[in-house]
């Protein structure tokens, strides 16, 4: 009896000890491998950042954390943002408020990062492309109108430039894990995806989810219907930006159905995804960092899902791939598709939540939205 108790205590202690390890282990492994590949392939990113707000700073921190990578210069309307960043990183960053001069300083192999609000993306990106910059990393949503998005696509093609869109899940090892798990066929093909995020705007968060679902479903969006919340909460980015919350339903070309809930009354952000397949389901709790699979035999499997750290890993990996001219996992075409789905939700809401077919046509293509 005593021996049994001792064994149970030992197992509990082992489990507790190991849980701590499990939290970091997967991320640490991926990070170590990533750093190794940077050294072996001599991938040293020289970056120039436009916009030293929240995203710009996050990207800058990632770049700063990798040996051999550097932020050469930064452009921001607010010089103080640049000096603040410089102080935080403890690195000298050449500051600029003259865009032409700044873009002129971006070398052929350098990476330009556009981390401003969406209303400036088209102007900045088009000017960068016209000035011959070949490697651009742009925040989402890529633009505020579909016409601008299409124009950027054509410009990038004309200038043989590689443009990555920051729908970061495509670069996280954890999203690749989900793809691998589904491909084991242990629960069959995807039938429906339910994503409950919580209170958020469609342009800010919905675009990520639309892109993620396109990636998981391996299909384009065919139809959208949705309703926006009547409450319009100001975004912290500024009162000029309007990005309502709501919920929507999406039909993919291959028959997969997606339900996205960003409702205002979901005050606490759940960030919970359920992928329902033919013979089971995969539950991804990004907030609590757990993944669980339930299959037809009733057997459950669960693991830690290191989301928060993987975001930074994904940023690093995407910049590394961009600097090596690898074709983008998320291109301008993908960015436009995510934007189009968001705009379609707006259109659907205007007509009482009826289905809207994609691709969108007519006047809506040129309409500019006040997305952040």
């Amino acid at each position, binding site marked *: 009896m005593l021996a049994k108790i001792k064994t149970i205590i030992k197992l509990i202690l*082992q489990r507790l000890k190991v849980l701590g390890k499990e939290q970091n282990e*997967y991320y640490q*492994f*991926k990070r170590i491998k990533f750093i190794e590949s940077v050294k072996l392939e001599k991938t040293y990113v020289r970056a120039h950042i436009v916009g030293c707000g929240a995203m710009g700073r996050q990207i800058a921190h990632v770049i700063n954390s990798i040996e051999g990578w550097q932020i050469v210069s930064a452009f921001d309307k607010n010089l103080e943002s640049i000096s603040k960043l410089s102080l935080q990183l403890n690195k000298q960053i050449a500051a600029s408020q003259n865009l032409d001069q700044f873009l002129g300083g971006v070398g052929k192999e350098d990476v330009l990062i556009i981390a401003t609000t969406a209303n400036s993306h088209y102007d900045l990106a088009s000017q960068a492309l016209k000035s011959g910059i070949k490697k651009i990393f742009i925040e989402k949503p890529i633009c505020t109108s579909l016409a601008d998005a299409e124009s950027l696509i054509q410009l990038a093609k004309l200038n043989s430039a590689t443009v990555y869109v920051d729908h970061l899940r495509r670069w996280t090892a954890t999203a690749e894990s989900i793809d*691998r798990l589904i491909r084991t066929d*242990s629960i069959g093909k995807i039938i429906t995806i339910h994503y409950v995020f919580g209170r958020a705007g469609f342009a800010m968060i919905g675009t990520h989810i639309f892109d993620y679902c396109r990636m998981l479903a391996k299909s384009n969006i065919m139809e959208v219907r949705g309703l926006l919340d009547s409450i319009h909460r100001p975004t912290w980015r500024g009162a000029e930006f309007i990005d309502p919350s709501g919920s929507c339903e999406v039909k993919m070309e291959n028959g997969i159905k997606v339900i996205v809930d960003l409702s205002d009354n979901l005050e606490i952000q759940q960030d919970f995804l359920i992928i329902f397949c*033919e013979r089971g389901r995969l539950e991804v709790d990004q907030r609590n960092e757990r*993944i669980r699979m339930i299959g037809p035999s009733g*057997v459950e499997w669960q693991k830690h899902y290191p989301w928060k750290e993987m975001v930074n890993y994904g940023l690093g990996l995407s910049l590394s791939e961009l600097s090596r001219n690898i074709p983008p996992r998320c291109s301008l075409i993908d960015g436009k598709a995510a934007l189009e789905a968001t705009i379609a939700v707006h259109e659907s809401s205007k007509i009482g939540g009826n289905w809207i077919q994609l691709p969108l046509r007519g006047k809506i293509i040129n309409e500019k939205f006040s997305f952040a």
Partner: protein
Amino acid sequence: MTGSDKIRLLIIGAGKMGHEHANAFSKNILVEIVAVSSRTSESAMKLAKRFGLAFYGTDWREEARRSNATAAVIAVPHLLTEKTAEEVLEYGLHILVEKPVSLHSVGTKALGRLAESKGLIAMVAMNRRFYSTVLDAILTSKYYGNILALTVIAPDPVSSYRAEGKYDPIVYDEWFKMNTIHIIDLMRLIAGDVLEVNAISNKVGYEKSRVALVKFKSGISGSFVSINSMGGMNQWELILHGEGVEVRLKPLERGNIIYADGSSKPIVISRKDNMKPGLLAQANTFVNSILLGKVCFPGSDLDDHARTLELAELM
């Protein structure tokens, strides 16, 4: 769910495995065990009494007819399995059949074709596939990255079993396909179809030993060692070598996940169902396979099992 919607299950063979399967299926609300047939009426009655069955006897056809069975578990003596499976499929029942279905891949394929032509589910009872440790090992490895290689060490003290003399001598002669087949089957479950095999076989002591290198179409490499009188407590060992993680099971009921930083986490087979490991999950999968019209992961249908037998034959 009414009685008429349920799967009406006939147990053919009331030996140890017949009881084990019946116990597993008795937990599934979509199944009604309706009858049992066995070589002796005593053994049939014993199982019938245990599970409260109205129909029991020595003629499975008679019991199937009387009970309106729609599916059957075939757990008869080894050398009767193939013939019984063929007859039951001809009769028109879905089957969960104990291994080995046949001693030859050719025979198994023929049965597979028969099942398919009749639109019947025929699943082979490879219960190791349903071990929670095995599924944990596969899913964990895939979660971290690609599986790069497999190592299987499968000692089987055949001469000791032969000395006991419990079964027909041919069973010991074919022990590789009778029992070792379980772990060979796991190699295929994990790595998929075979591209190439390089094997050495010779006699060590009284029995044959086998060492093989297997190249799978998936790119995974496998190494296999099975020697009759090996040390190491005669426990089967399965190692999955993955990107960033290694999973070792020894025996199959327990093991460790070893991470790239050297730390490890134990995994122990789930015993929450309080029965022979894997049987409940196997029973559930068989039921779901009937409902869905095809054998679900990680189940093995006859065609799949034939390919496992082919690998054993190549070794």
